[in-house]
């Protein structure tokens, strides 16, 4: 277990940014904190970095309590949202800053900085100043500046929010590859769920200073624990349900079967739009609805049904408003939401 956070609490005046959270981050994983603005994810990251001190709680790294250790003595490095490159230093000087601060010789550090530039494919940029570079290039310098110190954990604060969409996708892939190659633990903060899905091993969805769900990416995505998590991850299909058997529920779509025991008397189910399977009329267990709007999305179609559900299907047959749809929901694609929060 690499990093253990115990009951961390942080207040800013009357605002409770973190309400006593517990978390374990494993060595070598890519862990992402996901949530809307104000949920406390950045606060948590800064507490790990040491840039803020917790009001209560503990941070233990590899068995050592580092709760009170100041930032400049923690073996972690941060890539800031604004990159925070020193404007009055060249790229090389920026990257060499960490090693020099730690006492390495200036000559040595500058040489290693040059090598670090190669790692992020910015050879030849040593003598440039940050204001002479593009956003994507600056981000790579920020990465190199952090990674040259071989930190135990690399912290990334919304590292891609300043990049345009296309660049963002490229960087996401690169980031994941880099992490796998280095084996360093990465902890990233983002509000973009696509980003979290692309790069992470495990994610934690946060809301109002607490964790809504923690788990491997697939698990959180396929089986969201609560309406909040489902909503945040882009699920729009919520089906009201009443328990009427061990694994059976009564819903507006008819009686449906779940793949595990129904956890409540009354609650909500969710199903991903692409998991709703269109079927032939008369298929057992199929329900019907009318298409309200049909949206063509290039490789696939999105059908908005009059019962409020959203279906994603391939573009083979053309659908139009007013068409009747027959569909089934398989039991392992239906998810019972635990907290209606």
């Amino acid at each position: 277990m690499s990093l253990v956070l115990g009951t961390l609490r942080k207040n800013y005046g009357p605002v409770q940014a973190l309400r006593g959270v517990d978390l374990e981050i494993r060595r070598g994983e890519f862990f992402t904190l996901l949530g809307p603005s104000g949920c406390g994810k950045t606060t948590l990251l800064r507490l790990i970095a040491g840039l803020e001190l917790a009001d209560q709680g503990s941070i233990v790294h590899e068995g050592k309590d580092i709760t009170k250790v100041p930032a400049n003595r923690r073996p972690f490095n941060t890539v800031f949202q604004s990159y925070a490159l020193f404007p009055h230093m060249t790229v090389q000087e920026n990257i060499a800053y960490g090693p020099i601060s730690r006492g390495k010789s200036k000559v040595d550090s500058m040489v290693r900085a040059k090598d670090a530039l190669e790692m992020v494919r910015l050879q030849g940029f040593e003598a440039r100043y940050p204001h002479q570079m593009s956003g994507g290039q600056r981000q790579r310098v920020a990465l190199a500046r952090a990674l040259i110190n071989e930190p135990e954990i690399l912290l990334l604060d919304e590292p891609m929010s300043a990049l345009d969409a296309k660049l963002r996708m490229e960087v996401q892939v690169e980031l994941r590859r880099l992490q796998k190659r280095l084996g360093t633990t990465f902890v990233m903060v983002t509000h973009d769920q696509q980003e979290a899905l692309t790069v992470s091993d495990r994610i934690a969805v946060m809301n109002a200073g607490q964790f809504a769900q923690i788990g491997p990416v697939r698990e959180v995505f396929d089986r969201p624990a609560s309406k909040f998590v489902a909503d945040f991850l882009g699920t729009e299909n919520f089906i009201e349900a009443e328990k009427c058997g061990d694994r059976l529920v009564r819903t507006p779509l008819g009686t449906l079967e779940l793949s595990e025991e129904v956890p409540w008397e009354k609650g909500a189910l969710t199903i991903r739009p692409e998991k709703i399977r269109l079927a032939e009329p008369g298929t057992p267990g199929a329900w019907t609805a009318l298409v309200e709007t049909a949206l063509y999305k290039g490789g696939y179609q999105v059908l908005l049904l009059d019962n409020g559900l959203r279906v994603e299907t391939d573009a083979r047959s053309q659908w139009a408003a007013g068409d009747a749809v027959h569909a089934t929901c398989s039991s392992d694609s239906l998810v019972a939401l635990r907290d209606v929060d």
Partner: protein
Amino acid sequence: MRKAGWFVTGASWGVFAFLYLPLLCVAIFSLNASRSGLTWGGFTLDWYRRLLHNDLVLRAAANSLILALASTAISTVLGTLLALGIQRIPWGKRASKGMEALLNLPVVTPDIIFAVALVIAFGALRALTGLFQLGMPTMVVGHVAFQISFVALVVRSRLEAIGMDLEEASFDLYASYGRMLTSVVLPLLGPGIFAGAALAFTLSLDDFVISFFTSGPDSITLPIFIYAAVHRGVTPEIHALSTLVMLGTIAAVSIMQKLTARSGAEAGA
């Protein structure tokens, strides 16, 4: 931006004329060979020449300069430290408010009250210690007292513009507080410190009221000299001296304008 109507343009020219008329008079009168200035006696640079030999004037000018340099040096250091201390440390609400008030006090206090307060302070200290006779040292103390605020305010606004990000990055990269100051904060703060120092220097050179109240017989500064001379009776030498001072001001203002224009362009790039 829209164009200015005839009223605005005419009025503005009028205002500029109003502002410059007296200054031009001084310059012209300084070249008038006739001592009384009642009539035009011919063009001459004599008055300027006599200035160069006037010991009192030279000493007053030297005093002004020494005073400005000494007080600026001290106040820049103290003001910068003050700005760093106020801006970067999480003080409680009451402490912050108190320091704010103290910081703004010199800026809103009328000159004369400031001067009176200083005289009283020096009087009290004189009674207690026998030191603090009015003279150059007391003038330096007095100038520093008002310069600190101006320096601190200028440096503080530059600190705010720099933002905390870079300092946090420096910490994140294992720098000690001292290294952070010397490698990141001070280099970036440089222009702000320079601007604060320039402001302090100018305020000191220009000051009359505070110097007047806290000076001793040996520490006349240029403005005090001119003031006393005018009371004795206006002479062309004073006009010459004033014209020289004005030329100095013009030079300084033009240089500062050029510098700010250039740094403005750089920052925009």
